[in-house]
């Protein structure tokens, strides 16, 4: 924190909920450096203003996916969201927990069903570099020079795509973007049994091509592209079977 820089005053309006009590918002006015991240400010609210504030966080650099939340109504990974990008000096930042997940406390949501489903489609966390695609189906460009390297997959399981999905909003049974993307990444060729999971009433066909999942994804997974790719694969399979 350099002292030469101008500081901003920002009002943080934070969603609060404890136990069975009704929810409300608490206001905190903080002096912030505009180049800080939203998560830094939230951590400071906890450290210096209200020790009862609960929020999920771990890595602070977008590899763990724990700190997904709504910043002014938009799904953000708060650890890489600069304050200067979402508010102005003197402005207000409204912080809410992710949508479409049950709230446990304040900004903490229950993601057990989400992880259940990720496990169901066997979303792979460590993948061969040659298997991982960066958005749009483009191959990762990093050099491999013939050797097979393994890497942690792009999907950090933050749940932002589920929070942004309007279909998940009204139908929690819908598997949702991250899950379908996980199935696509795992591959119908590798795991033919995934067909049954994705080609069901709450699977692939519930997507209405809104593309919000891809818009909010902080990790270039491009779930919407993966859903469309999965549709293409399943459609091709179905039609082939019809004419055989």
């Amino acid at each position, binding site marked *: *924190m350099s002292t030469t820089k101008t500081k901003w005053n920002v009002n943080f309006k934070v969603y609060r909920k404890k136990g069975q009590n009704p929810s409300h918002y608490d206001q905190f006015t903080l002096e912030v450096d505009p180049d800080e991240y939203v998560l830094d400010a939230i951590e400071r609210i906890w450290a210096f203003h209200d020790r009862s504030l609960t929020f999920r966080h771990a890595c602070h650099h977008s590899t*763990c996916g724990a700190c997904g939340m709504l910043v002014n109504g938009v799904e953000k990974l708060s*650890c890489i969201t600069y304050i200067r990008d979402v508010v102005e000096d003197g402005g207000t930042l409204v912080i809410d927990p992710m949508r479409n997940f049950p709230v446990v406390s304040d900004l903490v949501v229950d993601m*057990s069903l989400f992880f259940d489903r990720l*496990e169901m489609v066997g979303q792979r966390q460590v993948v061969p570099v040659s298997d991982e695609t*960066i958005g749009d189906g483009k191959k990762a460009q990093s050099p491999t020079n013939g050797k097979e390297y393994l890497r942690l997959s792009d999907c950090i399981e933050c749940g932002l795509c589920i929070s942004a999905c309007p279909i998940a909003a009204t139908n929690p049974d819908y598997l949702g973007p991250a899950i379908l993307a996980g199935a696509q990444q795992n591959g119908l060729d590798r795991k033919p049994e995934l067909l049954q999971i994705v080609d069901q009433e709450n699977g692939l066909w519930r997507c209405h091509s809104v593309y919000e999942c891809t818009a909010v994804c902080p990790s270039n997974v491009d779930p919407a592209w993966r859903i469309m790719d999965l549709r293409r694969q399943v459609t091709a399979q179905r039609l082939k079977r019809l004419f055989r």
Partner: protein
Amino acid sequence: MSKPKAIIIGAGFTGVATAHDLALRGFDITVVDRGPIANGTSGRTHGLLHSGGRYAVNDKESAIECIEENTILRKIVPGVIEPNGGLFVAINESDMAYGEDFIEGCEACHIPIEELTPQQALRLEPNLNPNILAAFLVPDGTFDPLRLAMAFAATAKSNGAKFKLYTEVTGLILNGQGNVTGIKVWDRTNDERYEIYGDIVVNATGAWVGEITAMAGVDVPIRPTPGVMVAFDQRLTHHAINRLNKPGDGDIVLPQRQMVVVGTTSFEVQDLDYVPVIEDHVKLMLERGAELLPAIKNTNMRGAYMATRPLLGSGGSGRSISRTFKCFDHKETHGIDGLVTITGGKATTLRAMAEKTADVVCEKLNISAACTTKEVPLISYREFYRLPNNY
């Protein structure tokens, strides 16, 4: 006979690994943390699965721990590790001179290394500084910090451990003799306060151990030493790239998912609960990182963050203090029974720290149960959320 009851304070690396170890040894475990899993130093670790090469010259004790644990972790928790190896590269004459000590040190610590010509190294990693003078291949790796902790926590949970997250310890419960018999906690999710009793309380709060021991009126020699790390937006390498020299600032660049992460610095702080990211350190990381991988200069910054190492001991500066760990039985150190403190160490040695702690606990409680964590594979970290009591 009912199970011996252990309370573990802290759900960072040491806490979850100790929970796993003690659960396997038949303990009834309750883990409490004031936040979620790995919300402090552990989650913000650089993510380097050390081969030990970094400490092979100046801190052989740590180096040996690292290479042993590196091998074990690759075996028991492969689902959270990028096992692609690392390179130590020399850029100037000082680095070259260090190279001799490095070879000797690695040999002494049984760290397998392979010398590469600069051409070979550049073929492996084309984004390396083209002016490197020498390179050594070592068995480094990268892990996902949160998922590494979750895998231990999940396995502990599957063996019956209970996790009370977002639950802050507000005090220790002492009996008439001044021995610790339990803890007072505040559940921050519903604002309830209650007490938990146990046969032993393990203080595994890393850099924060002093806050817990202070509740018993005692002190441990701990020097919290934060460091800054910076993540960049492109995966420029598959190997961990280390500067072939004494550990210093910004001398490691790690691949992680679609990023590279440069670290670290070393400084000291007073207030542990909020340590600001120092801007000059961020600039330094960019400069030093670019000496190893020049392409970093043309890559967008993705995030800057810091973590507070729990370094042991007093005296000496942050870089010269050993990275090893220590388990304090407060019966021996201060005559207080029922409390054990584990701190120091590195992420890579989390399992060994847990083994040591569990040994101390078993010895104190007169329980003979062998450590099996070297062999037992961990279950998927996702099971932590799927098992009941799940956030």
